[in-house]
């Protein structure tokens, strides 16, 4: 028998704390596969953020730093400047990256910091129990938008990829989704490109991954993926918003 699919060796052999069906696990696996395929396990340094993925360092068998809420891009900057040969990535959720850490992510992009950012957008605060996120959809109910997000008082969802695509310093900005195998495969290619860019010294790369939170959305994992497809995709179109070509 020939192996078709095996567990990546950059993942530690532990059970994650994520809820059943949580796409964080998928995203972790894609990042680990990328690290394996690029042969960079020994020189990769991850930066964990605050959110459900706060313990990401337990799941990747690489050096890690745990950053304060929203500050992962600044921490990654510090690491990368000291050890430019390390491959540095941050792994951040939407509360961390798009709310409290908006300044850090924008300015890391502005500086063209040669790092890779994996950004999980599931339109809700998972860790703290399902509050409204900056990416929560209009009308979406959360514990702090119990009547549905009302743009009159709560504004509109922030589109991180579109926003960062306007930043000249950003080399690669793309949005993918984790709701089915075909999209997962595309996301993998995007993540790989984002790491490859760093190896080649091309500068700031960010992949936004649309994800679910079945627990806080109150759905089965399968229904959550369906909800993502039906509700998030129209608001968050997929694609590469900046590819660095022609620069």
């Amino acid at each position, binding site marked *: *028998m*020939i*192996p*078709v*699919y*095996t*567990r*990546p060796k950059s*993942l530690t052999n532990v*059970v*994650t704390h*994520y*809820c*059943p*069906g*949580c*796409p*964080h*696990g*998928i995203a*972790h*696996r894609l990042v680990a596969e990328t690290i394996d395929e690029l042969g960079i396990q020994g020189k990769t340094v991850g930066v964990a953020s605050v959110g459900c993925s706060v313990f990401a360092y337990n799941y990747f068998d690489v050096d890690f730093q745990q950053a304060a809420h929203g500050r992962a891009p600044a921490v990654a900057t510090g690491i990368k400047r000291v050890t430019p040969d390390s491959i540095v990535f941050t792994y951040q959720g939407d509360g961390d990256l798009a709310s409290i850490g908006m300044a850090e992510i924008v300015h890391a992009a502005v500086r063209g910091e040669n790092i890779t950012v994996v950004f999980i957008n599931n339109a809700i605060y998972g860790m703290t129990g399902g509050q409204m996120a900056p990416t929560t959809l209009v009308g979406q109910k959360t514990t702090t938008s119990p009547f549905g997000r009302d743009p009159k008082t709560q504004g509109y969802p922030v589109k991180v990829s579109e926003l960062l695509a306007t930043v000249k310093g950003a080399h690669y900005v793309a949005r993918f989704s984790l709701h*089915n*195998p075909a999209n*997962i*495969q595309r996301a993998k290619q995007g993540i790989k490109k984002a790491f490859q860019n760093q190896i080649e010294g091309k500068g700031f790369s960010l992949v936004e991954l649309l994800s679910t939170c079945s627990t806080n959305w109150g759905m*089965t*994992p*399968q229904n959550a*993926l369906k909800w993502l497809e039906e509700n998030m995709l129209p608001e968050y179109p997929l694609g590469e918003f900046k590819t660095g070509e022609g620069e």
Partner: protein
Amino acid sequence: MEKRVVFNEDHCKSCELCVGICPKKIIKLRTELNRQGYHPAFVSDEDQDKCISCALCARMCPDAVIEVRRPQ
């Protein structure tokens, strides 16, 4: 007989994403609980030869539970 698809059942959280995606509908949940208290997913020995090694289940699995092989 060598298996095409193998589950690390102790890591499974029975989210059933693999169950839903399998084109051959051969992935089932066990009635027994694993160490974490979940009914782990599995493919029975008799269904192993129905597996087409497409690995969609492995791609979907959030817990990297599934290994897939194909005959030479």
